[in-house]
Structures are given as structure tokens and as C-alpha cells.
């Protein structure tokens, strides 16, 4: 009887802890599929062709079968940029859309993440309020925390900020402190190179790939907002990696990569069927 009580207590404590600190990977469940896969080397624009790459990157999108087939277009996705530095250090930059429970839209959702083998800087999205307009005269009378917000969780600290305040001094200074307390000197130096990536002007990538690469890099832009270079000073570009892509097993632990990734079939035509996804 005592043992049972102890187990129940453990479960209750564990549930309470989960309620306070949601797990990033809880939103990505079900069979996983691979939607995109491309490999690159990153070089300075002006570097000679035989110069060693600044880093190698593998881009993949994972889709998770959270809903029925006809809703496949809206399955949760993880847009991942897997970066390997010449030192062997690995980083993952991620922009993601998790499983959204339509009955609980107030719950926070995974949004952006930068992780090394040692640490992670996570950005969650919360506060989606239909019809909310912070600039309307009525906004002053609404509760002070209503509206679209991001919540940063990292070993270096936490911060909840409104999306509209992203560029404010308060948010910039707090993000810089959190990043400084999360990543060590080597990690900060490695990740700073990613802030110099020029993806916008590279037409060879195509719209779909350019969009997703840019979106994965956003995770680094948030963490290191104070060091972000203006676009005309971003001088590092991606080139296709001539080497054969290795299997993804070396990323399994860092990325929480599922086994047996089948190709993601093209989604059925729009519009989706009537009714909810849940």
C-alpha cells in the first residue's frame, strides 16, 4: 500500500514538473517522415574554391503523422538545420510547428530551438488570441499578458516577451544575457558564424529551400539578436556538398531523430475536408 502511494506521489510530482516545464519533443509524436533533405558546405563568398568550408550543414524536414491522412498537409513539422563545425562540434537549429490542440489554443507551442550536445535555447509561442489587436484602444483594458508572446527557456534564464516588442532594448538585453549564460565561448563563436549566412539573395536555392533555411536560422537570430549582421554584411553562402550524405544516425540523440524515416508523400489537394483535425 505504501509502495503504491509512493508511486502515485511520484507520478503527481512528475506531472506537476511537466506542467511547469513542457518538453519540446512531446509535441512531435507518431510515425515520422522525411520531407526534405539537402547537404551544404558554407563558405565566405570571396573565399577561393579550395578553401576549407566554415562548416557543413544538412537540412531536413521531419513530419509526424499526428492526424488522419487527408490532413497530412498540417501534420506537425520540424524544420532542422544540422550543422557540423570543422572541430566536430554539432549544432541543431530548428523551426517547428507542433501538434496544436484546437481545444487548448492557449497552450504554448514549440517555435524555435538552438541546441548543442551540451545545452539548448528554446523559444516557445503562446497567447494566440483570435481577434486580439494590441494597438486597439481596448487593448489597454485587457489583462496585461493577453496577446502573442514568445517564451524563452534556456539554462541561462527565461524570458516572456510580446512579439511586437522583439526589437526593444529590454528584450534585446535579456536575450543577450540568456544566450551568454546558455552557450559557452566555443559555442558562441561557432554559432556567430551562422549569423553571417546569406540566404535571402541566393536564388539558386529556390523559394521552398530558401524559406526553410532562413526559418531555421531564425532560431540563431533570436538567441544572438544583438550580434545579428545587417543583410549586406552577411557574407557566408551555402554551396551543395559534393560529398555523399551520411546517414543521420550521428544526429539521433541530439535531434531526437526517430528511426525508419519514410519519404513524406505529397499532401492531398487543398482545401482540406470539413471538420476539425482532432
Amino acid at each position, binding site marked *: 500500500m505504501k509502495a503504491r502511494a509512493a508511486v502515485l506521489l511520484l507520478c503527481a510530482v512528475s506531472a506537476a514538473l511537466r506542467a511547469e516545464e513542457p518538453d519540446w519533443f512531446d509535441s512531435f509524436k507518431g510515425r515520422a517522415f522525411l520531407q526534405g533533405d539537402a547537404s551544404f558546405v558554407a563558405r565566405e563568398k570571396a573565399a577561393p574554391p579550395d578553401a576549407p568550408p566554415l562548416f557543413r550543414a544538412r537540412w531536413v524536414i521531419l513530419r509526424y503523422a499526428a492526424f488522419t491522412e487527408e490532413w497530412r498537409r498540417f501534420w506537425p513539422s520540424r524544420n532542422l538545420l544540422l550543422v557540423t563545425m570543422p572541430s566536430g562540434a554539432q549544432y541543431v537549429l530548428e523551426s517547428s510547428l507542433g501538434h496544436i490542440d484546437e481545444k487548448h489554443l492557449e497552450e504554448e507551442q514549440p517555435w524555435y530551438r538552438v541546441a548543442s550536445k551540451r545545452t539548448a535555447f528554446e523559444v516557445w509561442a503562446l497567447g494566440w488570441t483570435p481577434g486580439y489587436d*494590441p494597438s486597439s484602444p481596448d487593448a*489597454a*483594458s485587457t*489583462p*496585461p*499578458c493577453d*496577446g502573442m*508572446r514568445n517564451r524563452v527557456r534556456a539554462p541561462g534564464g527565461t524570458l*516572456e*516577451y*510580446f512579439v*511586437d*516588442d522583439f526589437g*526593444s*532594448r*529590454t*528584450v534585446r*538585453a*535579456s536575450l543577450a544575457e540568456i544566450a551568454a549564460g546558455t552557450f559557452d565561448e566555443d559555442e558562441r563563436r561557432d554559432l556567430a558564424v551562422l549569423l553571417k549566412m546569406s540566404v535571402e539573395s541566393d536564388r539558386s536555392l529556390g523559394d521552398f529551400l530558401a524559406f526553410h533555411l532562413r526559418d531555421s536560422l531564425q532560431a540563431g537570430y533570436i538567441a544572438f539578436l544583438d550580434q545579428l549582421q545587417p543583410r549586406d554584411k552577411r557574407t557566408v553562402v551555402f554551396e551543395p556538398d559534393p560529398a555523399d550524405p551520411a546517414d543521420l544516425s550521428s544526429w539521433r540523440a541530439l535531434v531526437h531523430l526517430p528511426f525508419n524515416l519514410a519519404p513524406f508523400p505529397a499532401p492531398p489537394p487543398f482545401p482540406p475536408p470539413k471538420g476539425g483535425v482532432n
Partner: protein
Amino acid sequence: MNAEEPPKITLERVVDGRGNRVCDIAKASAKSDNERRSAWVVRGLLKSDLVLNRQVRRDSNTGESTFDEIRLGDRAPLRFESGAPGSRVTAASPASTFRYFDVDVTRLTVRCNLSRLVQETDPDLLNAIAEYELMKQGMGEKVSIEELPVLMLLAIEKRPPHPSPPVRKKEPLSEDAPEAAELRAAALAALGEE
């Protein structure tokens, strides 16, 4: 050398339009070479005393630092610490801290985070400062920088001014009044001069 003058204490009574007591306010202050301290105790406006503390320290290396505190009675305080004008303000509940720049004080991010700190400290503080501000409006007074925690908490809810605040007047509270001695002691205690 850090010579400190004996604390100065002012006792006041706030009354309504008919002369009935609304609350009493004690303001104590002390000054030394490098430090100014003040404590305000508002008694009778709420169930508990509303206590405001302020300490301004001058340091030849770091300049001026200001520490403000607001609490109800003996309950947990919400603290603010700021340095030179334009520097960041640190607001702290017993559970967490949030740092912000003054220029951002009207932003939703600051309002939301201060609101969280209030909830962590003492949710009754918001109603308390609303009552306090209403009383100030009734006296035709504005909340001053000396009452910085009140200003910060008012920014959270952005309540519009009351269209017709009840009339309030301030008058001196006699040292001989029965409540004076206790109020005076409370102000000295809040100042750390027990």
C-alpha cells in the same frame, strides 16, 4: 565618516469631505553622507498598512543607486533597483526577477512581466495601489517618483483616471493623537530604526 542625522518624521491624516478620517500617513526619512532613506506607512486605507521604502545610495565608483520596495503589512515585498538614469531597472519578487529599461515601461512585455512578479509577491498589491491612487486623485495630487513602485504597478493595468474621485484632504496629525505613537513607531521600523 558616515554621519547620520536623526530621522525626521511627518504624520498626516487624510480625511473625506466631511472631515472623517480616511487614513493616516507617516513619512520617515534619514540621511547620511552617502545615503538617503525614506519610509512611508499608509494606515487605515486598507486592511494592512501599505508600506513604501526608498533608499538612495551614492557611490563614487558606481554613481547613484536607488532601491524601492512596496509591501502590505508584514507580507512579502516587491523590490525595484535602478542605477543611473537610462540604466536598467531590476524588479524582483521573492521568486524571480525581471530587468527592463525605463523607455520600455509602457510596452506589453514589461507590463506582463511586472504583473507576473506582483502575482508571485502579493496579488493584493494591485488593488492596494489602485485605492492609493484614487485617494491621491481625490487630493488633487499626482503619484511622485518617490512612490516609484506605485507608478510601476499603475503602468501594469493602465486604469484611466476616475471621472469623479471622492474628495480627500490632507491635514497634520497631532503627535498627541492616540494613533500617533504607533504610527510613528511603524514608520521608524519600516525605516530600519527600531
